[in-house]
């Protein structure tokens, strides 16, 4: 049996168009954009084309796109770079984040709190509703930045980022969104919104790993956190990864172009998976069932099953999925996202299916059948 990859929210393969666009940059066109000779000029041209392509796809102006190495760096720059603006003025920075952010945002926000600033975490209910009172109170305190993710990576939950950006602006506050899981699945036209800062990464949208960008809308001040040459408006100094930027830009362009079609297709497939699992396994919880969710992610809770054993069982059945989120060196850490949404009700195993380009209806049938089989064995093992 051929293994089935249902972990597209973890990472994706590099698509053919992206690979082709990158190839010349890895061989003949290897120049450093800072060089003044023809190799340098050619590299600059490719880099700026990539910037234009990405900007057009996201509905912003080219100078508003900064190529950053990956989503984590981009999130960090948004949070820490905004906090640094406050610190430079001698103010103690306050950052506001939702409780279900990626760790790249949460850890950055906590580091601000550790170094003399403050971090306010806004709760999110199981229906996806933000604690609006907490948000309003926090906005009144003029935070350096509010950061909320567009699509949550663990559950697929969608936060009302466009509305929150408007609320933030009404209060004169800068708003950042981690749009890593949103691009290619939901319409992301940043120019039509009041979002000031947005993080995108290449490897979730069939681009190369280690690539990313931060959109910084005109007039939004961000202080550098890495120092060196003047590249990327001094916000991400270091010789540019031109090949990565080109690959990323093609990936962003294709992902946004195909988003509407792909969203419909993936929503249908995800619903099929969800419905067959719920029909067969009455005891499971569909995380975020009452909330607005992205097309490609289905997270289920299986009571009385062990997380790691479930994942191993599915892997042996040829189904590649994730738990709630990655864990390190064998230690299972309870998902902060599920804790925020479900509190102590978040028990048992969590399995996240995430769908993508390669996913077919056959894959969905096979994944459902395998999951049912493994859960049945887990139930049998739990009741001797």
């Amino acid at each position, binding site marked *: 049996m051929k293994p089935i990859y249902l972990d597209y929210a973890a990472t994706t393969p590099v698509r053919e168009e992206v690979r082709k666009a990158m190839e010349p940059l890895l061989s003949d066109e290897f120049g450093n954009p800072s060089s003044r000779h023809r190799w340098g000029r050619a590299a600059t041209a490719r880099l700026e084309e990539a910037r234009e392509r990405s900007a057009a796809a996201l509905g912003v102006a080219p100078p508003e796109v900064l190529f950053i190495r990956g989503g984590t760096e981009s999130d960090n720059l948004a949070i820490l770079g905004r906090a640094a603006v406050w610190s430079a003025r001698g103010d103690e920075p306050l950052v506001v984040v939702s409780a279900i952010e990626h760790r790249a945002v949460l850890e950055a926000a906590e580091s601000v709190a550790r170094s003399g600033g403050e971090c306010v975490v806004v709760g999110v209910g199981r229906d996806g509703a933000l604690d609006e009172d907490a948000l309003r109170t926090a906005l009144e305190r003029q935070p350096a930045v509010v950061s909320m993710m567009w699509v949550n990576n663990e559950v697929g939950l969608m936060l009302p980022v466009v509305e929150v950006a408007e609320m933030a602006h009404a209060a004169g506050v800068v708003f950042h969104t981690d749009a890593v899981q949103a691009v290619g699945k939901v319409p992301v036209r940043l120019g039509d919104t009041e979002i000031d800062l947005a993080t995108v990464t290449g490897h979730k949208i069939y681009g190369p790993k280690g690539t990313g960008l931060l959109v910084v809308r005109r007039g939004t001040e961000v202080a550098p956190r890495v120092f060196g040459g003047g590249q990327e408006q001094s916000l991400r100094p270091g010789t540019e990864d031109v090949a990565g930027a080109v690959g990323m830009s093609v990936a962003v362009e294709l992902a946004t172009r195909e988003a509407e079609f792909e969203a419909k297709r993936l929503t249908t497939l995800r619903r099929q998976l969800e419905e067959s699992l719920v029909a067969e396994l009455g005891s499971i919880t569909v995380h975020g069932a009452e909330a607005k969710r992205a097309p490609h992610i289905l997270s289920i809770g299986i009571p009385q099953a*062990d997380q*790691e*054993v479930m994942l*191993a*069982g599915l892997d*042996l059945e040829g189904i590649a999925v994730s738990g709630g989120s990655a864990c390190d*060196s064998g230690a*299972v850490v309870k998902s902060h996202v599920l804790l925020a949404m479900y509190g102590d009700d978040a028990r048992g195993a969590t399995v996240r299916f995430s769908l993508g380009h390669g996913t077919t209806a056959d894959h969905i049938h096979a994944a459902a059948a395998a999951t049912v089989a493994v859960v049945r*064995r887990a139930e*049998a093992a739990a009741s001797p």
Partner: protein
Amino acid sequence: MTGRILVAMSGGVDSSVAAALLVEQGYDVVGVTMKTFCYSEKAGPSKTCCGLDGIMDAQRVAGTLGIPHYVFDVEEAFTRDVIDDFVEEYANGRTPNPCVRCNSNTKFKDLLARGRVLGCDGIASGHYVRIEHGNGASALFRGADHNKDQSYFLWGLPGDMLPLLRFPLGDLTKSQVRSRAHELGLATADKPESQEICFVPTGDYRDLLEKRLAPTHPALEPGPIVDLDGRVLGQHNGYAGYTIGQRKRLGGGFPEPMFVVAVHADTREVVVGPSGACFSDGVDVGELNWHGAAPGEGREIQVQIRYRAKPVSATVVRCGDPLRLMFAEPQRAVTPGQSAVVYERERLLGGGRILVSV
């Protein structure tokens, strides 16, 4: 038997070779490493095979063998079944046997439950022990390498689990295992043996007791050292630091070396006496487990009262729980809390925990 089998991989050379042999035998092998307790952030020198480098090494070996490998966190059960028991035994003035507890519970029972979810038909490990499967019944025997034999640790396995177990190293010697590991190019071929208790890598368990009991627990408080007549000879630093048969150096010049004869948790007394006082004629054994039928009254068996002790002939003088065994010749340092493991020649019959010497 073929089919899918789960092999417990500690990251040591033995379980690495066990996995390799099962692959050669045509099994669909699934490697699993159990994470049994919380490793400190600061990695110390790699003394044991169960730590984080154990996980890494097991992963490397699984990669070489081309088998899937998973890490299962069993910390909660391990803490409850092994570490809590370890601490409680010392608090009660007894000397625990954590490796037996782990093998009786965590290593096989907990793993088997997980293996079932993975669709495994059996469980294997790198123990030096032989298993024979007859029709309907299975029996464990000492490993062919008597220096490495680990059957002692397996007396607590439920008898009905035996048919599911495989021990590929049972007929091999340690040096054969090492050379197989070299032939196969396994990363763990030259890894040193683990000697200490895995959750006490320094060998000093007092730290652990202080953390898990209050530092002011009676077991860790000073108390009297007394002789066989109850005369106080000095002070000790907490009775949890003593085990039967241990030599005790006392100031003041005693004519002969003194040894710990008993530990009384209720009075916090550590009783010492001359070497001769450490011998006993028999033992009462509780928490019994038999792989087949329990040996009847009058039956002659061999009993092993410590991992490294020689088996000694003994007679069952009282069946039931507690079981009473009388030794063919007096045995030194029969220690409450340790295992009394019962054999009939090479065959492991079962065993129990030593309650008291008689």
